[in-house]
């Protein structure tokens, strides 16, 4: 099972190293990890994608909660918005392919951000499945470079991750 986990952390030196180290040490399979600041000073937010059964998920959450700088952990089992940004550089051998590629990109609502004689860079946002499908659609033309940010997620509605009550602490 694929799980998207959000982690609210104090923005202190070494936090990311701690989290990445913990995940690796405990042998959890991590698919992606994205980090960024929040609107609140001193707080960052991490989106983690892990695969495993419920037991694995429970352990990931509990182990993350043991870290002193981790304020809150949640997994997005509830309705949520999930997005990933990808930059995809595709080889363009000739005119004919260029048209085909543009058609595909339009279907995926990918934006062209760079055009060269033999390549195009597309920018695409969407859930991970969409990004995956776009990449697969481009593969036959020749993928030159792919850069994905990893998934980020927010719960729909009023539900938010915030400071206060970390239920399960060490």
């Amino acid at each position: 099972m694929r799980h998207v986990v959000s982690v609210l952390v104090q923005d202190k030196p070494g936090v990311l190293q701690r989290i990445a180290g913990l995940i690796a040490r405990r042998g959890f399979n991590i698919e992606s990890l994205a980090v960024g600041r929040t609107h609140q000073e001193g707080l960052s937010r991490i989106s983690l994608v892990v695969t495993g059964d419920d037991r694995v998920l429970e352990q990931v959450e509990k182990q993350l909660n043991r870290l002193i700088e981790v304020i809150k952990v949640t997994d997005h089992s509830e309705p949520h918005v999930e997005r990933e940004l990808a930059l995809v550089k595709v080889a363009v051998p000739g005119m004919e392919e260029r048209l085909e590629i543009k058609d595909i990109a339009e279907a995926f609502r990918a934006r062209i951000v760079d055009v060269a004689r033999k390549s195009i860079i597309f920018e695409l946002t969407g859930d991970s499945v969409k990004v995956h499908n776009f990449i697969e659609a481009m593969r036959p033309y020749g993928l030159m470079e792919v850069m994905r940010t990893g998934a980020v997620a927010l719960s729909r509605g009023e539900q938010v991750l915030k400071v206060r009550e970390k239920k399960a602490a060490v």
Partner: protein
Amino acid sequence: MNGAAAILKALERQGVTTIFGHPGGTIMPTYDALYDSPIRHILVRHEQGGVHAATAYARASGKVGVVMATSGPGALNLVTGLQDALMDSTAVVAITGNVPQALIGTDAFQEADVCGITQPVTKHNFQIRDVGDIPRVIAEAFYIASTGRPGPVLVDVPKDVQLAPFSGSFDVEINLPGYRPTFRGHPRQIERALEALERAKKPVLMVGGGAQHASAELIAFAEKTGIPVIPTLMGLGAFPGTHRQFLGMPGMHGSVAANWAIHNADTILAIGLRFDDRVTGKVSRFAPNAHTIIHVDIDPAEIGKLVSTAIPVVGDAKWVAAELAKGAKKLSIAEWWQQVDEWRTKHPFSWNPKPYLQSQEVIHAFWEATGGKAVVTSGVGQHQMFTAQFFKFDQPRSWINSGGLGTMGVGLPFAIGAALARPGELVIDFDGDGSFQMTLQELATVKKYNLPVKIVILNNGFLGMVRQWQDLFHARRYSEVYLADSNPDFAKLAEAYGIKGLTLSDRGKLAEAVQEVLEHDGPVLLDCRVHHEEGVFPMIPSGGAAEDMIIENPREAVEAGD
């Protein structure tokens, strides 16, 4: 006042009276400040000795143990001891010096990435970059180390921070929004636990190292319910070893009664333990008849990590045990006791007397002579298991050994820490000839502070535990475990440090030797030349289950038949 003096002042404010450590260039400002501080510093001969001593100090006293070291090599020598403290959940604060901030990251002399390296071996670590943060960080370090599930915390202080002028306040507020240990167990869960116990026909109470501070509550609960009690290696002493409800420790070298009781139990109440594989054996075959496992632990991450739990209770062992005791009823388990008693009577820990000296009888003799009134430490190996089997611990915090990491060499430094934490009390280190040699330089520390520790080496001339495995599982191919040809004369070695040394090889003189050791006013080392091919039994082979238990030494049966 400079940062260094502020560190010591902040430690003083935490109630610290004793620090273990070893100086060096980058921690020198703090050692300089120590010169004017009321805090007592114990100079060890290796930083590993210091962190182990601080660990034992913490465990024997219930306070926080403190160790100090210089940057790079000094700090790195703490790593094993920090992991040892982490695995056995001990409140230790390590203060390390570091190179000046301007040199960090330049591969400067004696620089190492101490925070990076110690991240996995500490509960948390800090690097202080601003002198003003000293009081707050020290306060947070102590708070983190000693609350929730205790553990080691490292505070790294670059030299320039120690030298910077400090004028701040020591009245600080701890600000850790992500750290809120749950102290009180959920009342509904405790109620459910009590209900499950009332329905149980074959219940057992397992007690771990996390319940060492909950002894009185555990005894109250156990006596009210009449439940059989099984303390783990780390839990020994939390429930009295001479109590009639005590079944002995479980696991690889546990008692037959404890292992069979767990195997047959329908309900297990586990308080303050983490189901280590030395306790469970193969998890899928652990406690196969237990439909209800109730797990009480202050660390939620331990609950359900290895063993499926029907009733989880997150909370402090002392608090939860008190609540359980309040609501407990006498259980009707006479039939179960009949069965348990039969196992216990038929298979006690025992040994067959031989013409030669044996470890078991040495430990037993010390237990008898002291009435069990001692703080006992050990190294790691057969002698450790024999001590756990044959010394009956009646008091909490009286058995200090390395359970989780199994660190050879802890015996002597643990004894040093215990002696400083509990002045006036008898401290005995039952050590192995292999383990002892890993940290024997701390004899100098014993001498320097005239610590009256009794060191009893169970000298079998082998890395005995490894030899036992080779004996049982590697066709007796004794690869690289023989020590006798090159062991020092331990008694003479002690004498070389100015410590009384004795050697015992004649079992007829055992009682006399025990008396001599106990009556000697000051430190003494007794080198016991025990039989070289003794085995620890019972034994559940690694990865096995209770059903695979080897109850008696198979070698002995074969040899008797020869």
